[in-house]
């Protein structure tokens, strides 16, 4: 090959490299800007009282968002209790029965559910729970969020289980271990890091969901531990306070946004640690 063409190819190679580096920087700019903006506006409202006190009426100084923090935790727990075991069970089924007709339809419905707008899931929870119960409740909000987190858990479980080599399964079966014990005692423990990752990421996702809570969890200015009563949540509080006309409430909303982002960020860090610590080598 003559040297002119070789030079041209080296030049193209460099150009490509510079190109992808620039573009990847550009793609993280929005994230950095958002974080920077939230920090700048929110950090000043953070204090110890902000975490442990209830919101105060307009005009009164101080106050916190403890009810929203507790509410969000409550909602995440209610969402996770049915959805994590159900999602893992469905994921096991899809991975163990790859070609059955039921798993074809199961996989399809998981995809459809994943694409369903969150507001629609909120309406469903409203019709199923709020209407029969006669009031907004943490329960209905939690169920709505639970439905939202289900597809991510199913997919994470199925995909992780598919990565487990068949040789491991055969090792157990050849020892005379029944199929269900093989799945529960050998395959599931070996895939724990992937499943945990799916669960944590789906928790991080629903923690920031507002739309399904608008007519289920509804919001509450007071502290509430009762799952059959309306409950506040961080994204709801942000939504309500940010759309209010009071600058003081805007500041609280920024602070709450800060807390929410920090929570999601922490969950993602935990995911990294889980992957590193619990990763199983074959």
């Amino acid at each position, binding site marked *: 090959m003559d040297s002119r063409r070789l030079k041209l190819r080296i030049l193209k190679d460099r150009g490509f490299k510079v190109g992808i580096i620039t573009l990847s920087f550009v793609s993280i700019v929005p994230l950095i800007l958002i974080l920077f903006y939230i920090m700048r506006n929110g950090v000043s409202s953070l204090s110890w009282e902000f975490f442990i006190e209830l919101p105060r009426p307009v005009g009164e100084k101080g106050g916190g968002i403890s009810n929203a923090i507790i509410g969000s935790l409550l909602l995440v727990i209610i969402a996770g209790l049915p959805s994590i075991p159900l999602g893992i069970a469905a994921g096991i089924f899809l991975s163990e029965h790859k070609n059955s007709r039921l798993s074809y339809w199961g996989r399809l419905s998981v995809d459809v559910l994943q694409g369903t707008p969150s507001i629609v899931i909120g309406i469903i929870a409203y019709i199923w729970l709020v209407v029969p119960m006669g009031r907004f409740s943490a329960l209905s909000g939690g169920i709505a969020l639970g439905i939202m987190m289900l597809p991510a858990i199913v997919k994470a479980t199925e995909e992780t289980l598919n990565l487990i080599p068949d*040789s491991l399964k*055969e090792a157990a079966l*050849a*020892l005379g*271990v029944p199929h269900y*014990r093989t799945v529960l005692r050998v395959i599931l423990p070996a895939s724990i890091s992937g499943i945990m990752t799916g669960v944590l990421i789906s928790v991080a996702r629903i923690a920031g969901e507002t739309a399904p809570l608008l007519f289920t969890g509804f919001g509450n200015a007071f502290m509430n531990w009762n799952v059959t009563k309306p409950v506040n949540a961080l994204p709801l509080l942000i939504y309500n306070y940010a759309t209010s006309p009071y600058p003081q409430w805007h500041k609280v909303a920024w602070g709450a946004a800060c807390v929410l982002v920090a929570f999601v960020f922490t969950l993602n860090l935990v995911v990294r640690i889980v992957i590193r610590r619990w990763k*199983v080598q*074959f």
Partner: protein
Amino acid sequence: MESAVLKTVGLSAYYEDNQVVNKISLSILENKITAIMGPSGCGKSTLVRCFNRLHELVPGARVEGEVFLKEENVYDMDPITVRTRIGMVFQRPNPFPIMTVRDNVVAGYVLNGIKLSRSERDEIVEQSLKGAALWDEVKDYLHKRGTFLSGGQQQRLCIARALAVKPDLLLFDEPTSALDPKATAHIERLMTELKETVTPVLVTHNIGQAGRVSDFIAFLYLGELIEFGPKGQLLTTPKDKRTEEFLTGKFG
């Protein structure tokens, strides 16, 4: 006349409509090493996987004919019982990655929900690891994960795991194909020592290995049992032309 531990009568195996084992009848004698030898894809792995009923777990797989384990028809028994009496060691070492060396050895008990006292467990662990010639190397590392061992050690750990449940028969499905020559020699020596306590069946495509290790050789080609006999006779004076061609490297 020595007694046969395992006997097949007209055994055929299929994947969907594809027949991979064709009406094989053979006997495996107690405390002798029988090698199932043949070129790749001749159905030798599938044949032994019919013995412990692993073959039927593949979707679309089917078995015809009979397999007797000490006069009992394997296909009338519960597959779980069959598999505790016929152990298996696979091509690639597959210790349980989440378990320690000790737990790997007693996995056949623990995973089946059989409770062992501490002394029983320690005795089984020591006996099995000694049986697999691994005890001296790992006795100080019993609490470490099995996957930290070298490939050859992992394979011997898998042998110990299979020995722990005291099977009648131990199937070795090309146990050295993922190992280096030194580890291979170790495993081969081990197999000849093991035949006093358990009857090994060795699947191999390696003529040298079959010659070094076995007492009897079954030569399989395209799913058929071409020839079966004592190794000396089969390797030096094969009756069938195909056996001779395989042995002289005309194919394989």
